[in-house]
């Protein structure tokens, strides 16, 4: 009777094939898991998620303000459907608010003034880059600025800011360093927002660009 069996060599090859199969089987799964981990928010730093949640909560408050405002306008309109004078008052009030928003009238309020100076002396003078300026403005908006001006030029929805040689162009208008940034808004929050460790002021400081922040009780920004 002939005994059918495998030689050690055949067993090795069989194991080799089995392992190859499993490696091939797991490899796409591994790639998929890593990709999905990156895409889902489960794997992210809780600090980032908390930051997002705080922003969403702020957004919720902002939306509530607008919803309440529009709702009241609708109610007033329904109440004053036969009262032309009341309708005119309501429309005029909203027009005043919108003129302030669009930069048509000068505004005043509490705020902060940031004076930015480049270091022009020495072997390697420092220079404020477009990205630095955009980051500074962004951080001000994010921390509660309502109106901002650069060297007295008020920023609007269509304003661009960029360096043009040693000058700064704001809305196509040329202005020079040092740059005085006035921001009307939540003074405390704006100050805190700028001074976060690793924030824009630290960045400017590292690049040897001086930035002095002052709280001002009453700033005036022209149209």
């Amino acid at each position, binding site marked *: 009777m002939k005994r059918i069996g495998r030689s050690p060599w055949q067993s090795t090859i069989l194991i080799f094939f089995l392992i190859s199969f499993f490696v091939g089987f797991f490899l796409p799964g591994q790639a998929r898991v890593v990709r999905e981990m990156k895409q889902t928010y489960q794997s992210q730093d809780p600090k980032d998620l908390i930051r997002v949640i705080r922003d969403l909560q702020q957004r919720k408050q902002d939306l509530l303000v607008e919803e309440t405002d529009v709702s009241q306008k609708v109610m007033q309109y329904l109440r004053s459907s036969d009262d032309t004078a009341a309708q005119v008052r309501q429309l005029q009030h909203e027009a005043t608010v919108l003129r302030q928003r669009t930069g048509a009238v000068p505004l005043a*309020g509490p705020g902060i003034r940031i004076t930015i100076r480049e270091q022009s002396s020495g072997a390697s003078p420092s220079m404020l880059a477009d990205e630095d300026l955009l980051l500074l403005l962004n951080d001000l908006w994010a921390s509660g600025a309502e109106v901002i001006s650069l060297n007295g030029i008020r920023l609007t929805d269509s304003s661009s800011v960029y360096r043009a040689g040693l000058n700064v162009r704001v809305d196509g208008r040329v202005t020079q360093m040092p740059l005085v940034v006035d921001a009307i808004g939540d003074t405390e929050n704006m100050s805190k927002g700028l001074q976060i460790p690793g924030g824009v002021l630290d960045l400017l400081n590292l690049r040897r660009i001086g930035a002095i922040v002052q709280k001002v009780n009453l700033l005036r920004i022209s149209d």
Partner: protein
Amino acid sequence: MITRGRTGGVFLAALFVMVAGFGYLLAVQFEPTVNNAYVVPAQNVELVEIMKGLEKENGSAAQRIVDLRTQLGELESKGAATSDEVRVLTQELGELRAKAGLAEATGPGVIVTLSDSSRTPTLSDDPNYFVIHDGYLRSIVNLMRRYGATAIAINDQRVLGNSAIICAGPIILVNSSRMSPPYVITALGNPEMLADSISQDVFFQVLEMYRDQFKITCSVEKKTSVTVPASLDNAAFKYAVGAQ
């Protein structure tokens, strides 16, 4: 036998490498799950639930605002028919709302699309080049304004002068709303002027270089008609008042 012995050695070495590789893969396969179970998940799962809940609430609030604005618009139109003074004021208000970004805007323009790389960075790569950063979006928006854009949106969010574009780790927020790639930046304006100027700008050319080298998405398209949504922000200031 000698030949077979050498071949056997090679196979055993290959077997060793494969077993080690298999073990490594197995470990890596389960490692994220294990880490998740011990370090972040309980906390993160809860945070993600809160985040999604808030996004749902904000989405509903946004829809209510759109509905209320539509209702207000209808009432104003009816009122405008009753008096010349109301009609003139209503028309002026419509223009001011459009200027303030409180109305949807449609017209010719461009769409710039940016998205993270489809390629996974290797150990020798700097992963920063493979993702779209908040600063890129700020720079593109600034470029669009520089070259004459009259209204801008990123995905479904209208970008006004005071719109903050920030990041929280890998998450980009516009108007405190979470954005997901691709980031579609839509601008109203002269399509030729916008597309040509943007594509010739050094910043955009750097992004194109990243596209070629790191496979991020970066494109600019001229469009005969684009639409940007209205801002849902309230127009009134809390701190700034009219100056005499």
